[in-house]
Every structure is written in structure tokens, then in C-alpha cells.
């Protein structure tokens, strides 16, 4: 018996960890950075030496409150830290300082759009904790079970870490990806984290279960999704796996599975999960967090315009299409670049500029893997290019060629156009001479057009463009040709 796929219901909840962009760790003054020589950013506190005491980083508390506010959470007037007790060598205290029953933020939501439809995803909680160190397993091919021993680097131990948990409101792999991208954009606009998945400053785990009529779902945790693309692929794979199992009446087991990017499948972790008992209890070494109303109000005022609000505003005020608006609000780098270009342009209109930034410029950057913050060119140089295109000084394909050169060298579009002799020719006198020559060289075609057959008209326009090495203003050429051949 097979059920049609429309009867399956997929339920996904996400758990996101974000390393905060503070100068120092959560409970000690050791500097926070990515990579570096092992155990060069450690002290007695983050190494868990006996007798040391943690002191919370006020900046980390501030940034967590900002995240909670941006996700429309209720902010706890009184929240506390807990100890989460378990043994693992990357955590030298044998407990992680985390939050338990009273997180900083709870009951929030994230507003996003999927396929033009507005979707609200509930946020269960936003809490603050500390990150662990990093283990390298030696022997046994680097696999933890077969390893002879492990090596521990505690540079990352104690880095401020925010955990964001969603309600199980997500219904597809695509929605999960949109949520993850929207959240990443929000965190970037808030300037609270580097949000680099490849460096682990943004980590996404998921719970997914598929139900069929009369068959309840089995919750499977999916880990090790190291890019936005792998979030989508892993969840799509897992959804399909569970659907197939339901259709074939196979038993599904609650477990953790790891996404394997290379083979494109999720691999079962330990099936026999022993029930964790973390023996949470209030951290006696830390005082409660009790933000004042004035301080919260001030933070609220400091919140930037969030990407979805900016997107809707630009679509409304500037008439941008949804795709362009989406790309232009995906990170603060591209947003600021677009805004500053708009301020600097004279002739180009916002839609044109948006289109160039979202397609040509963003496309060129994604090809090289660069970010807008790595750009060699300034918004005013880009604005100059936009004006050259808008005024007809150069045509679109020349504009693209100039843009490529600008991205490499960082020089102004004017000087590149000069250097390459690329100014578009719009001068009637100059073009009329070329048109006359083309007509006399293509007498037969010209006669057909004079007789009212417009089909070969493009041949003549093309011939003029070739004769001018693509520099002719096509609109002016068309106009002259029509006049000379009495066509309309």
C-alpha cells in the first residue's frame, strides 16, 4: 500500500549555535579568534583550573539581548545561568555553563517569505552559553571510536555562544534553508557574529520527522550540515528516506544521523542513545541577569532595520523586483554598497542600479567567493559606471566588460573606457557615414527592406555594430537606418 506524497506531513525544527563577535571569551579575558596555534588563547578560567571563578562578558549579554529582540522574543526580566554536567574532554570543567529554564529570550518569531508567501516561524528560546574546545582524534583514521587517543586545543573553549531553538514550524527542506539564510542575514545586520558556517561560527542542526496518515512521525536529529546548501540537501534526503520507510512499512528509529556531503546521504550515529542526564543546577558562581527597562529600550533603539523590512521598503519605494530586493538585503555589505551607490548616481535609476548590483556585481563576487567587504571598488566608482550606462555613453555589454576590469584593478570606469577606447558612439554624423557604407555593401538586403520586408533589418544593425567594434549606440543606428531606407 502506498500513500500519495501529498499525504505526508514533514515537521522540522532547527537548533542554531552562533559564536558571538566579542573581543574576549564569555567568562574570562582570553581573546576570541578563529584558528591560530593551539592553546595560545587559554587561561586558568577557560582551562577549568580548580578555584577559578567565571565573570560574564557584558558585551556578550548585550549581543544576546539584541538577537532575542530582533527575533521578537520576550526578554526575561530575571534570567540565570545553569551548569550542564557531562564528561567530555573538550570541556575542561566537566560542565558547560549554559541556560536552562529561564533563557534570556523566549517565545519569539521570525518573519520570512517562501515563494512570495509570508511565513512566521516560532522561536522557542534564545540563550547564552560557552563553546567547547576542539578535539583531534589520533589513530584509527581520525575516527573517534577507533582512535588511540585524542588531542585537545582549548582556544575555542569559553567563546560566547548563543543557542537559538525554533518551534517545529518548518515544513520543508526549502523552508529550512530560507529560515537559515534569513537568520544569518539578521545576525549579520545586527553585527553580532561572523556567521561563517565553514569556520563554525554558525552551526545548524535539525530535527525532522515525517508523518503519514495513521503513522506517527519519528524524530531524527540531523547534524554536520556545514553550508546552507547542505542544510537543504540533508533535509531533503532525510525527508525522502523517511517517506520511503513509511511507504514500505519499515520501522523508523529515533536517532542522530550525520550528513555526509560527499556521498549526499545521512549516516546513522549511535542508535542506542542512552538518556542524557545533565543534572542541571543553577550556577552558584554567577549572579542573575536583570536588565533594566531603560537599557533594553536603548538596545531596541540601536537595532538596525532588519533585512525583511528593508526588502519590503525597497520593493515599495524603489519598485525593485523580489529577486533583486532579496539579494540586496542578504548581507549588510551589499545593502550598504547599494545605498551608497544610489546616493552617488546622477542619471541611473534605482531599478537599474539594483539590477546591476544584484546580478552583475553579486554574480561576479559569488564566482570568486569574495564578499562585498572585500570589494576593490567604491560605490562612487560603481555609480560612475551606472551613469555611463544610463546616459548611453557606453552600452550594457561594454559596461560588463568595464566592471570586470574594475573588480580586478579597482580603477575608475572612465579611465578604463578611455584606455580601451570603449566610449559608445552616439554621434549622428559619425554613424551616418558608417551606415551609408553598410547600405552600399549590402545593396540587396537594403532593397528588400525598402520594399517593406523588415526581416533582414537586424543584419544591417549587426553590420554597423561590427564596423564600429560594438561601440555604436544601437538605438541611434536603428533610427538612422530606418530614415535612410524609408522603413518604419
Amino acid at each position, binding site marked *: 500500500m502506498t500513500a500519495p506524497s501529498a499525504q505526508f506531513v514533514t515537521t522540522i525544527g532547527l537548533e542554531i549555535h552562533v559564536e558571538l563577535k566579542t573581543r574576549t571569551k564569555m567568562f574570562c579575558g582570553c581573546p576570541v579568534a578563529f584558528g591560530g596555534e593551539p592553546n595560545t588563547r587559554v587561561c586558568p578560567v577557560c*582551562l577549568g583550573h580548580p578555584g577559578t571563578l567565571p565573570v560574564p562578558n*557584558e558585551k556578550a549579554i548585550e549581543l544576546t539581548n539584541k538577537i532575542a529582540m530582533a527575533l521578537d522574543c520576550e526578554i526575561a526580566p530575571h534570567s540565570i545561568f545553569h551548569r550542564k554536567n557531562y564528561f567530555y574532554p573538550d570541556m575542561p570543567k566537566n560542565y558547560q555553563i549554559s541556560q536552562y529554564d529561564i533563557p534570556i529570550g523566549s517565545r519569539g518569531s521570525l518573519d520570512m517569505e517562501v515563494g512570495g508567501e509570508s511565513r512566521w516561524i516560532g522561536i522557542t528560546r534564545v540563550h547564552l552559553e560557552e563553546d567547547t574546545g576542539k578535539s583531534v582524534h589520533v589513530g584509527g583514521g581520525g575516527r573517534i571510536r577507533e582512535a588511540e587517543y*585524542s588531542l585537545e586545543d582549548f582556544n575555542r573553549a569559553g567563546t560566547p555562544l548563543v543557542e537559538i531553538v525554533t518551534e517545529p514550524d518548518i515544513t520543508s527542506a526549502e523552508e529550512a534553508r530560507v529560515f537559515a539564510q534569513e537568520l544569518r542575514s539578521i545576525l549579520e545586520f545586527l553585527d553580532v557574529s561572523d556567521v561563517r558556517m565553514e569556520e563554525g561560527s554558525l552551526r545548524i542542526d535539525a530535527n525532522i520527522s515525517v508523518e503519514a496518515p495513521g503513522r506517527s512521525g519519528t524524530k531524527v536529529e540531523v547534524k554536520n550540515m556545514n553550508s546552507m546548501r547542505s542544510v537543504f540537501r540533508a533535509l531533503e534526503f532525510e525527508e525522502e528516506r523517511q517517506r520511503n520507510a513509511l511507504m514500505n512499512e519499515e520501522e523508523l528509529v529515533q536517532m542522530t544521523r550525520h550528513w555526509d556531503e560527499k556521498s549526499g546521504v545521512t549516516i546513522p550515529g549511535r542508535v542506542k542513545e542512552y538518556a542524557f542526564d545533565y543534572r542541571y543546577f543553577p550556577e552558584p558562581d554567577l549572579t542573575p541577569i536583570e536588565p533594566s527597562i531603560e537599557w533594553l529600550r536603548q538596545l531596541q533603539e540601536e537595532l538596525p532595520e532588519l533585512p525583511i523590512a528593508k526588502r519590503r521598503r525597497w520593493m515599495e519605494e524603489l519598485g525593485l523586483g523580489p529577486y533583486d530586493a532579496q539579494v540586496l538585503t542578504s548581507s549588510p555589505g551589499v545593502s550598504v554598497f547599494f545605498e551608497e551607490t544610489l546616493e552617488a548616481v546622477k542619471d541611473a535609476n534605482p531599478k537599474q542600479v539594483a539590477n546591476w548590483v544584484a546580478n552583475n556585481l553579486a554574480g561576479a563576487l559569488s564566482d570568486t567567493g569574495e564578499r562585498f567587504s572585500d570589494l576593490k571598488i567604491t560605490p562612487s566608482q560603481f555609480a560612475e559606471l551606472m551613469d555611463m550606462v544610463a546616459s548611453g555613453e557606453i552600452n550594457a555589454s561594454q559596461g560588463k566588460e568595464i566592471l570586470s576590469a574594475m573588480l580586478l584593478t579597482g580603477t575608475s570606469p572612465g579611465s578604463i573606457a578611455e584606455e580601451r577606447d570603449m566610449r559608445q558612439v552616439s554621434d549622428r554624423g559619425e554613424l551616418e557615414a558608417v551606415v551609408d557604407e553598410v547600405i552600399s555593401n549590402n545593396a540587396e538586403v537594403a532593397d528588400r527592406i525598402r520594399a517593406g520586408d523588415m526581416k533582414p533589418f537586424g543584419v544591417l544593425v549587426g553590420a554597423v555594430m561590427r564596423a564600429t567594434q560594438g561601440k555604436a549606440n544601437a538605438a541611434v543606428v536603428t533610427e538612422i537606418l530606418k530614415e535612410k531606407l524609408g522603413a518604419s
Partner: protein
Amino acid sequence: MPITRKDVDHVARLARLALSEEEKAALEEQLSKILAHAERVTSLDTEGVPPTSHAIQLANVARSDDVVDPLSRDDALANAPAAEEHQFRVPRILEEEE
């Protein structure tokens, strides 16, 4: 509710303590007494009293986000029972069967 041997085994396992049979027997009795003592507190009327996590009336103790020089790596590793490649060397983390 008295503590059973099963409870003692469970708590010892969580704390990674290897206990002898005599120790377990003693702890079974002692832990039961401690719990019984704590249970006396529950007989108090706490209606309207918010849960207390800290005995001191203090909140928002925090520090500014300023870097303090970390330990030198040699100092950091000085007390490690084993070190290798400037890292702490630890025994195999997961046994074949937990």
C-alpha cells in the same frame, strides 16, 4: 523516598565514580538521610515565594569586554598529565560499547 541501590549506581555512573560494594551500601544510607533532611524543607509553606537560585541579593555582576593576556602555552600545558604537539593528550574518548 529512600535511595535505592539502582539510584546509587546511576549517580555514580554519571559522576564517573568507581565505588566498591561497601561504599555503595554506605552511600545508599547516607544519601537517603540527606534527602530525608531536604524533604523537611518541602513541608514549609512557600506559596508566593519565588524560587531562589542564589543566597546573595546581587545581580548583573559582569566585566567589560577587554582582553587579558592569556597564559603562555608552556604554562598552560605544564600541569597536563600528557601533552603532544602543544595540545592536551587524553585517552580514547568513547569505548566500543558504553
